């Protein structure tokens, strides 16, 4: 065991003593949260140039209302509350007569005006918008702009238009709006957690279930696991390939067995990843406590996170080192790294559906498939729902058995392939080495 630990120590020092490791340690969270930081930094840097919007109203019902809505917004909602500086753009509305005979030509011409920068967007309201049932094909409100899907104006238009439609319908039904004062009061559906009854029978109110707890915490844990795997296991593939091609392996094998060599490399990578994890978890926890967000720290999940991370790194480490022993050059290593990353990539692909319904059959099954268990089970456990208590244990048992199999198979491939130079990279060769040694 001493030899394994000595080799692991060398691997560890070789990784953590480099400037690259320190820079990576600092830059990783910056890259991970880069878009959030950028959004926070740029939130006050809004383009406040006037937005000129042309309305083609085939229903003929919206000209006054939209102008009034824009006017209210331009006078009341575009200034900073503290220093009255304009922080949002002015919306100016222009109505044009509808050319019913050549409506498409008219829309085309307006599109050209957008392209030329004359106007920002145009709104096309169908003739049957007030009573869609009469002519469903013409019951539309289309917003045309160069980036219509992401444009804030589209979202702003929704409320004034829909409220106005309701008013029109009430009016036509002969109902006086003033008789129903709360007619346009919209209610939010609040996201709340589950209530608790303590030992004394007191009911503890449910806390607010917000996006941070529901989405950010699982995502951060998943991303951290992914990044630690990238840092601790993935580099093993090219490292072993280099040691093989530079003939270092034969020197080492003069002192230790191939299995000890492989195990030392896996443990070295594991130590590197756990060092980074310690830094991030420690730093993250301290930061959250300092900023008063301690309630969002999932202390109950952290032990499971660490256990699953260790198992994942062992599994990936065995996979990467054995595949590294098969590679003859950087090209081979690159080809092999793609399938080797499946246990990390598949959970990333299914992250959102699992997060949305952590108790679904799909999420449960995926979290019990050993290669995906560490990441998917952690994701489910970090979500706000309570998953059945047996599932994390069953998942852990499965992944440990699978990891032992990967280490066994990987060691058989490793001991055969590590001294072979120039043997073509073939799936059949890898399988033969694993089954027959």
């Amino acid at each position: 065991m001493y030899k394994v630990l000595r080799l692991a120590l060398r691997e560890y020092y070789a990784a953590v003593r480099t400037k690259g490791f320190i820079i990576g340690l600092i830059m990783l969270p910056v890259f991970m949260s880069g878009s959030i930081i950028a959004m926070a930094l740029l939130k006050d840097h809004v383009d406040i140039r006037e937005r000129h919007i042309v309305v083609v109203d085939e229903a003929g019902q919206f000209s006054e209302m939209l102008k009034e809505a824009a006017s209210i917004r331009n006078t009341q909602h575009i200034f900073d509350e503290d220093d009255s500086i304009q922080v949002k753009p002015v919306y100016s509305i222009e109505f044009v007569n509808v050319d019913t005979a050549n409506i498409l030509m008219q829309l085309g011409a307006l599109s050209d005006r957008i392209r030329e920068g004359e106007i920002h967007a145009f709104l096309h309201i169908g003739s049957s918008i007030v009573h869609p049932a009469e002519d469903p094909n013409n019951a539309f409100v289309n917003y045309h702009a160069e980036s219509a899907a992401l444009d804030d104006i589209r979202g702003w238009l929704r409320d004034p238009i829909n409220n106005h439609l309701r008013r029109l319908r009430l009016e036509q039904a002969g109902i006086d709006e003033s008789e129903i004062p709360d007619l346009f009061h919209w209610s939010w559906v609040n996201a709340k957690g589950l209530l608790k009854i303590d030992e004394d029978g007191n009911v503890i109110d449910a806390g607010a279930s917000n996006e941070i707890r529901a989405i950010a915490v699982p995502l951060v844990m998943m991303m951290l696991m992914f990044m630690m795997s990238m840092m601790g296991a993935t580099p093993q593939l090219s490292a072993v390939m280099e040691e093989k091609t530079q003939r270092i392996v034969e020197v080492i094998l003069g002192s230790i067995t191939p299995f000890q060599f492989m195990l030392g490399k896996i443990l070295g990578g594991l130590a590197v990843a756990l060092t980074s994890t310690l830094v991030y978890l420690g730093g993250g926890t301290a930061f959250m406590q300092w900023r008063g967000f301690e309630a969002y720290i999932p202390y109950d999940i952290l032990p499971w996170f660490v256990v699953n991370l260790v198992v994942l790194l062992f599994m990936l480490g065995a996979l990467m080192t054995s595949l590294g022993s098969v590679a003859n050059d950087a090209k081979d290593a690159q080809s092999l790294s793609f399938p080797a990353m499946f246990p990390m990539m598949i959970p990333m692909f299914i992250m959102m559906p699992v997060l949305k319904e952590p108790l679904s059959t799909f999420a449960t099954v995926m979290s019990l498939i050993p290669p995906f268990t560490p990441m998917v089970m952690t994701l489910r456990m970090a979500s706000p729902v309570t998953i059945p208590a047996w599932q994390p244990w069953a998942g852990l048992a499965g992944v440990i058995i699978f990891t032992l199999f990967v280490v066994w198979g990987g060691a058989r491939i490793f001991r055969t392939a590590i001294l072979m130079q120039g043997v073509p990279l073939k799936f059949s060769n890898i399988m033969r080495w694993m089954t027959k040694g």
Partner: protein
Amino acid sequence: MNALTLNNITKTFNEFTAVDMLSLEVPDGSIYGFIGPNGSGKTTTIRMIMNILHPDSGDIQILGSPRASIDNDLVGYLPEERGLYKKMKIRELLQFYGQLKTGHGVLADVDFWLKKLDLTQWGNKKVETLSKGMSQKVQFIATVVSHPKLVILDEPFSGLDPVNTDVLLQAMLELQKNGSTVIFSTHDMATAEKVCDYVFMIHKGKKVLDGTLHEIQDKYGSDTLRIRCDSKPSGLDRIAGVDKVHDFGQSQELRISPGSNPQDILKKLMEDNTVLSFELMKPSLHDIFVRIAGAEELHHV
């Protein structure tokens, strides 16, 4: 006691038999030279001794114990292809290799060997800054720093200049003096002749020579004439009783046929040339090697 015993070991790779029923006994405390053309099975044999490859049949004993029951800590190994971590500092690297074998710090030994091989000032430099010859010496230190009982060196002199070759030879002799057994493979016959107590030759996976240099030479008898003339001699290959001529420029070696009289050859030679020196001798190891390996292998050597 033998430091190493090979008993009918065979190793095949698919259809190719790299080592075929090889038996060998290496006495404790000896220097044993492994010679053989490229691809003859030297490195495969050494890898089996090191337990890196496993023989298909036969058994290996090291220091009197079966190979499987003895770990590599007692054996120092310098592979044919050099492998050093380029980014590591030399002292750290040598410590690492020493610790892998011994399980404890070997800094004093590292410094001893660095001084001995004139590398002290390079101790804190990275491996990537070393020349090929210096890397070779560092690799040698990595092999012997743990005081192994059996030292196996695969082509230790390749890439070394004559001065460093002598330094390494002296180091090998010192290891022997301190009780280690040294096995080394080489293509340098002159070096093998100089230091080896025993020479073993493998060709196409089979043992073709084994014994002391004198024993090997005695098998061939005194069948070589070395001559030196005042000018380049001509027509040597036409002299009756001469099987083969090896021209070294300033001197020539003639292999004489069994039963031929060297004096008759000298007489014939003197008819056309002025002979400055004439010596009847046993064949050199080089000559024996070439006779066995043949012209094709000579080309590779």
